């Protein structure tokens, strides 16, 4: 646990979730300096969802579905594992899970940075729309499915059908890829991609610890962007 001096502590063992979220929503620019600490989440769903201010929220334990959902501006740190849909549709800010994340981490996220210290399971970054996701472990099957934009950086391995039906999201995987999904191909890692990857790694606090040359880049072959009968078997 980090040594922090929280200004506000919510213990979900004896406080309703609704009170926590309402207080977080009411926090304004004037309370920006405040640090929030959440105890005993015990797998509760929808913890710290919909924050719209640059707060720092530290959650001590495992959380359920949709933690930090639709986050904007806030930094949410989870000292535990996260359930389905971690930081789903995040707009901006920073979400960091110290353990593993379940399915659909960062789903449909528009912006911000999601860092997962452990593994993420299936559909990590599904329909991502601009979010950056850095997974220190591995990701499960169908990750970045229909990924529109943003980046998914995986230090470990990727499961089956990586980047299926990909649009313009950029995928970087250091380990093995079990299989690529429809219309996803390995692409040349040019200098601009190395710069981009280095930026994302730096933002995730990994500067100097990981060699960008060890990654492969994957992106859309753009063959499915407009229907062509020769590609019908991919549908």
């Amino acid at each position, binding site marked *: 646990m980090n040594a922090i001096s929280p200004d506000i502590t919510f213990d979900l063992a004896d406080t309703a*979730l*609704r009170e926590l*979220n*309402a207080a977080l*929503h009411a926090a304004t620019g004037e309370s920006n300096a405040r640090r929030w600490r959440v105890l005993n989440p015990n797998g509760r*769903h*929808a913890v710290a*969802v*919909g924050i*719209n201010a640059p707060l720092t929220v530290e959650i001590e334990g495992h959380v*359920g*579905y*949709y933690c930090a*959902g*639709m986050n*904007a501006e806030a930094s949410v740190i989870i000292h535990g594992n996260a359930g*389905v*849909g971690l930081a*789903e*549709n995040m*707009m901006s800010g920073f979400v960091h899970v110290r353990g593993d994340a379940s*399915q*659909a981490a960062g*789903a*449909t996220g*528009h912006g911000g940075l999601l860092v997962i210290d452990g593994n993420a399971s299936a*559909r990590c970054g*599904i*329909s991502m*729309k*601009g979010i950056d996701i850095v997974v220190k472990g591995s990701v499960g099957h169908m990750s970045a*499915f*229909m990924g*529109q*934009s943003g980046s998914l950086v995986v230090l470990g391995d990727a499961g089956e059908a990586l980047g299926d*039906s990909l*649009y*313009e999201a950029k995928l970087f995987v250091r380990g093995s890829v079990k299989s690529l999904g429809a219309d996803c191909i390995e692409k040349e890692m040019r200098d601009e991609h190395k710069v981009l990857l280095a930026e994302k790694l730096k933002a995730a606090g990994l500067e100097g610890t990981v060699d960008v040359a060890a990654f492969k880049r994957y992106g859309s072959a753009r063959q499915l*962007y*407009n*229907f062509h*009968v020769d590609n*019908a078997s991919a549908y």
Partner: protein
Amino acid sequence: MTAHSNVPRTPPRFSATFDPATLAEIRRAAATGIYDIRGGGTKRKVPHFDDLLFLGASMSRYPLEGYREKCGTEVVLGTRFAKKPITLRTPVTIAGMSFGALSAQAKEALGRGATTVGTSTTTGDGGMTPEERGQSQTLVYQYLPSRYGMNPVDLRKADAIEIVIGQGAKPGGGGMLLGQKISDRVAAMRNLPKGIDQRSACRHPDWTGPDDLEIKIEELRELTDWEKPIYVKVGASRPYYDIALAVKAGADVVVLDGMQGGTAATQDVFIENVGIPILAAIRPAVQALQDLGMHRKVQLIVSGGIRSGADVAKALALGADAVAIGTAALVALGDNDPQYEDEYQALGTTAGAYDDWHEGLDPAGITTQDPVLSARLDPVKAGHRLANYLSVMTLEAQTIARACGKSHVHNLEPEDLVALTVEAAAMAGVPLAGTSWIPGRTGGY
């Protein structure tokens, strides 16, 4: 002269199975290698509200006077959990239609018309535009599998949230928006490359099934501090179970869309062959609500082929709390208007039959992103036409309700109806006219 000249010839005869339309479709498929894509709802004839009639009051029941004796039409939606339920002056709402599928002018016109008569409009797949938020006093924000343009700022601006699981034209399918309509603005709102064919997902990315939907609803409520009504929209296919599950998952309002409901673009085979008519869907849905003790507590909005105040009254009599219109609203704005007949002809169709909404060439400027075409639609005038039409529908529904002796349209009942056909009697669960026979009322759903 040959010996055959006096033999009567067999006249050319088309096959009923391989009729000209079928033959043309086979040739089209063989030439292109892709299924036919179009907009709108089913074009085949299905049992509908036309096959129901009201039993007006006479001796056994007393009617109300039009213009003098009050007949309420207001409806309150979202009374179950939401802190801020919605009150509408008429039970006719505007169904979800996206900016992208429709021009910004059309979205604005919908908002203007609906606001004038005190009802709501609904966003679609592609996010909320300032035009529609600005002009819609009550705006329902659709939460769709694609999450195009979905953001918490707009979510909080909405008056209600509609989680879309399916729509009547294509239960089980995702949305489509073809390249011709992905303009710069649409592409930016959806975060997609311009000009691509966009195929939306058919399932939500971060939940599947009613048990997980319950958790998703909790998240949306927490996000919006439990203020906004949460609708759940399904396409009609297994309405008894789907409505029951939406209620169990915590919906405030359920929206049930029959197969006549339109869509911006999808496969013709889907539109014509998947889902059931709204006539057949309402009673099982109401039965589910009644079985759970939730009828009128969780409100039911039905849609799919609603055209007149008579349709509204019939839907309410079967147990709905409100209806939604899509296609009819577009027609009121000016869709398929004969004034553009020459242009429809140039597109190889005719006014009234135009359904290539996905191609973005709509002469009426409604289902297009073309700046020249869309500029043809004056949002103020079109909004006024829509308001007129909505007022007429409301008055018509009141007229029927009064004739049946009801001081509120919600007091219409299935017992006020009879059916003209055995099919309609079975589907609507009302007796065949002149009999007490309701076919098929033995089993469950």
